[in-house]
């Protein structure tokens, strides 16, 4: 922070809050926010530890938290009829659930810790409360969200169109 290390009364390394702030600054979703609001998000978020096998959220659950992985490994699954299918894995530096900060909605996937995992967790209620204090940032936030949806579909179209086959008629999430 602003005090030089020489008169540091605590003698510690960087605090959890400072680390949280650093993590948030690396995440695209928060890129439009000024430092003043990031500080509040970093302050309101909490660090949580998950045991191997523990669910962060489960498919069908109403939940509204976003997770930034600090250490460990997470598995994203979806279950239709048969056994759960693994969609992908997340590791340190990944951010999951930005959209759920905007509203509490039903989870389409399950997220589970593969090993002991530490995450920075921000829940929708606190995020919304804080966002109320920075109303000028809302248009920027929406822009970021829309851009990331378009980017996602663009990437999908570039990489997957040929393999897609029958799902072609369902494309166009960026047209919503």
């Amino acid at each position, binding site marked *: 922070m*602003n005090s030089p290390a020489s008169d540091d*009364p*605590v*003698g*510690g390394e960087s605090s959890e809050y400072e680390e949280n702030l650093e993590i948030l600054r690396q995440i695209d979703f928060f890129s439009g926010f000024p430092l003043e609001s990031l500080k*509040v998000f970093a302050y309101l978020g909490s660090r949580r530890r998950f045991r191997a096998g523990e669910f962060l959220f489960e498919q069908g659950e109403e939940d509204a938290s976003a997770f930034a992985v600090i250490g460990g490994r997470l598995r994203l699954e979806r279950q239709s009829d048969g056994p759960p299918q693994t969609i992908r894995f997340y590791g340190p530096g990944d951010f999951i659930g930005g959209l759920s900060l905007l509203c509490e909605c039903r989870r389409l996937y399950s997220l589970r810790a593969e090993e002991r995992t530490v995450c920075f967790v921000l829940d929708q209620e606190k995020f919304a409360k804080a966002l109320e204090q920075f109303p000028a940032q809302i248009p920027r936030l929406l822009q970021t969200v829309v851009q990331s949806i378009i980017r996602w579909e663009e990437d999908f179209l570039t990489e997957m169109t040929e393999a897609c086959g029958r799902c072609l008629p369902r494309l166009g999430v960026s047209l919503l």
Partner: protein
Amino acid sequence: MPHARRIPVVKRSLGSWILDGNLPWQGLLLAVIGLFIATRVLPLEMQKRIVNEAIGRREVDLLLVYCGTYLAAVVLASACKYGIQVIETLIAQRTLARMRRALLEHALRLPLSFFRENPPGSVVNAVVNELAVPSNFVGAAVSTPLSNLLTLLAFAGYLLWLNPLLAVISLATYPLAMIVLPLLQRGANRANQKRVDLSRTFAGRIAEAFTGIHEIHGHAAFGVEQKRFEDLIERLRKVRIVWGLFRYGVKSANNFFTSLGPFVVFLLGGWLTIRGQLELGALVAFLSAQEKLYDPWKELIEFYQVYQDGKVTYRRTMEFFDVEAPVAAAPPDRPPLQLDGRLEVRHLDFLTETGLRLLQDIRLSLRPGEHLALVGFSGSGKSTLALCLAQLHAVAEGRIFLGGHDIARLSKRDIAANLGLVSQHPFLFEGTLRDNLLYACEALEAAAPRPSLDDVIAVLHQTGLFADVLQFGLNTPLDPRRHAAIGPGLIRVRRKFQEKYGARFAEVVEFFDASAYLEHSSIAENLLFGTAQRPEFEPARLAANDWMLDFLNREGLLHRLVNIGIRLARQTVDILGNLPAERVFFAQSPMSPEELPRFRRTLERLRRRSPEEPPSREETLALLELALRFTPGVHKTLELGEELRGRLLTARANLRRALAAEQPQAVAFHDAEAVLPFQPILKNILFGNTPPAPPKVQEEMLQTVIQLLIEKDLLEAIVGIGLEANVGSHGEKLSGGQQQKLAIARVLLKSPRILILDEATSALDNRSQARIQNLLETRWKGRCTVVAVVHRLDIVRHYDRIAVMKAGKIVEIGSWQELMERKGALYELAGKR
């Protein structure tokens, strides 16, 4: 008081209280009054003799004798007056207590309709305030008129004896007063009558407003309420002024009449004395006797006012309560009946006071142990029927039979001994969980055995209240004296928990360890490592403790902690400085929103000052206090380095030594082999902090603790402590679900033969509701007749019969199977059509 008992209190005259129960006291009063009169007349005679005999004949011996007698009479008169007032007060207070007792006894038994019409506040006002005036009258009813009349007569007689002509003329003003004063008093009475009624309405309105205070706050309806009060306050003001004007009118008129007396005596007496027809001593005695007439007369007039006010207030109060209780409270000459569980309703109609027909031609017949569900749309009369069955509503037409007896002829206690009612919004009384649980049983007194702790625990299990009570017990602070018996057991559980499960729950419990820094305790708590036994050593007050400041200074920590305070203040102001004072923002902050502006100013001053200039003492203490609150596990803006943790741990050890030497008994240090005084029992067991953890893990830990408590035979003791938890006014400290479970439990404890449930499980979650339903089916079917008003159709399937109500009538009745096959009203209600 056999005589008084037979007449209901509201029919008794005010006069009936005077002798009733007060006879010995009133007798004693008479004796004292006799003595009092003598002591008041004697000085007059002495006066005359002093002037005529002692002074006239210049005899000092006689002067001394007469003056001595005079003094003795005056002393005795004062003593008698005091004695009279003491006895009057005794009688008044005894009467007030008896009036209150009798009136409350009567009021509690009045039908519910009375309380619907009259708000509780007006009842409170009548019992608490208004009875004081009539009881004061009762206290004075014998003594004041008697003593003052006798005094008056004695003085008047003495005056007549001295000089009949002078006496008659000077006394002539009194009859005049007796004509004028009652006229004025009549005006005062009318105003007083209005005042009593208005006060009652006013008290009722106030009580109503404060009962609904959450609505007022919710709608910010302060102005509306104020306006409603305004009119009453204004009317009350006016009527009290009128009342006062008349009352003081009586006093002033009286003063005028009595002061006419001396005028006549001076004029006529002076003339007679000049002419030598009256001795000077006699004139002095006459004048002083004349003056003395004033006091008893004044008291008589005041008593007359007390009597009139008391009469009006008493009549108004008793008229207010003069409603007959429809059924007797208890059978007069036999124990309560033991009824079987038969229930029969014949052609029952129920009308509201305004004549609205809520129930029409209800016919029902239930065998003992049969279970009936009442379903239907809201407003169909289900709850009304349930309340009629419980004898809470008087029925208009038709009859209800319990165990073959017409309930209109049964006393309340007959009903209570056999029937249990759980209403939708049960009422809990201020007191402990145990008081509320035993409420129904205690009400039956000898008619039912008092349940044992085992019975209570069994019912707690059945209703699903056990875990709640246990939780209350575990959260109760351990009082080393009251809970001394469980101390050693708790220590054993603590040891076992640490040995066997310490590693497993390492994440959810931060065990107290004298050699480790506690992440979930503040710096102050880390230094103390114990419970303060003296207020100045409470963690929150350490910064204001000079001894502690001195210690921190010696340890070289004071300056460092103040710097930590500065840093915390700076960060908090930086992050939260522009946010509103809401809990969500400040929950993880060591600073409250109210303190923030002060710290902002302190930081501002520090910034402007040169680095050498230290902060003021006041600023230092505030910053130190902030630093001492810092808890690494909660406040995430700082990371305490290893070196500082080491320093704080050393200080902890040094503090312990210093306290032992200089301030013994200031702190009870955490000791694995001793209880933590005034800390929650759970904390005593865990011997550590419980940081926030996922509910699943917490539940697992709690189950482990319960298991250990069972092993060490402590569970019942903790539940016993939990039962002593106070539920708060209206049971506010319990959740809605807990309140309902408690209401069900208190009725089940008296094992009624008939159970009326009026949406008794509406506030329960699905699991608790299923548990109660299961209880009814397994334990109560066949043993207890049940009539349940049910909103949710998914729980009525297993009732023997279901009655569907519509617009005050039962439209169909039968088992679930039958009614669904019939495809009638239930089928429709279930949404199948």
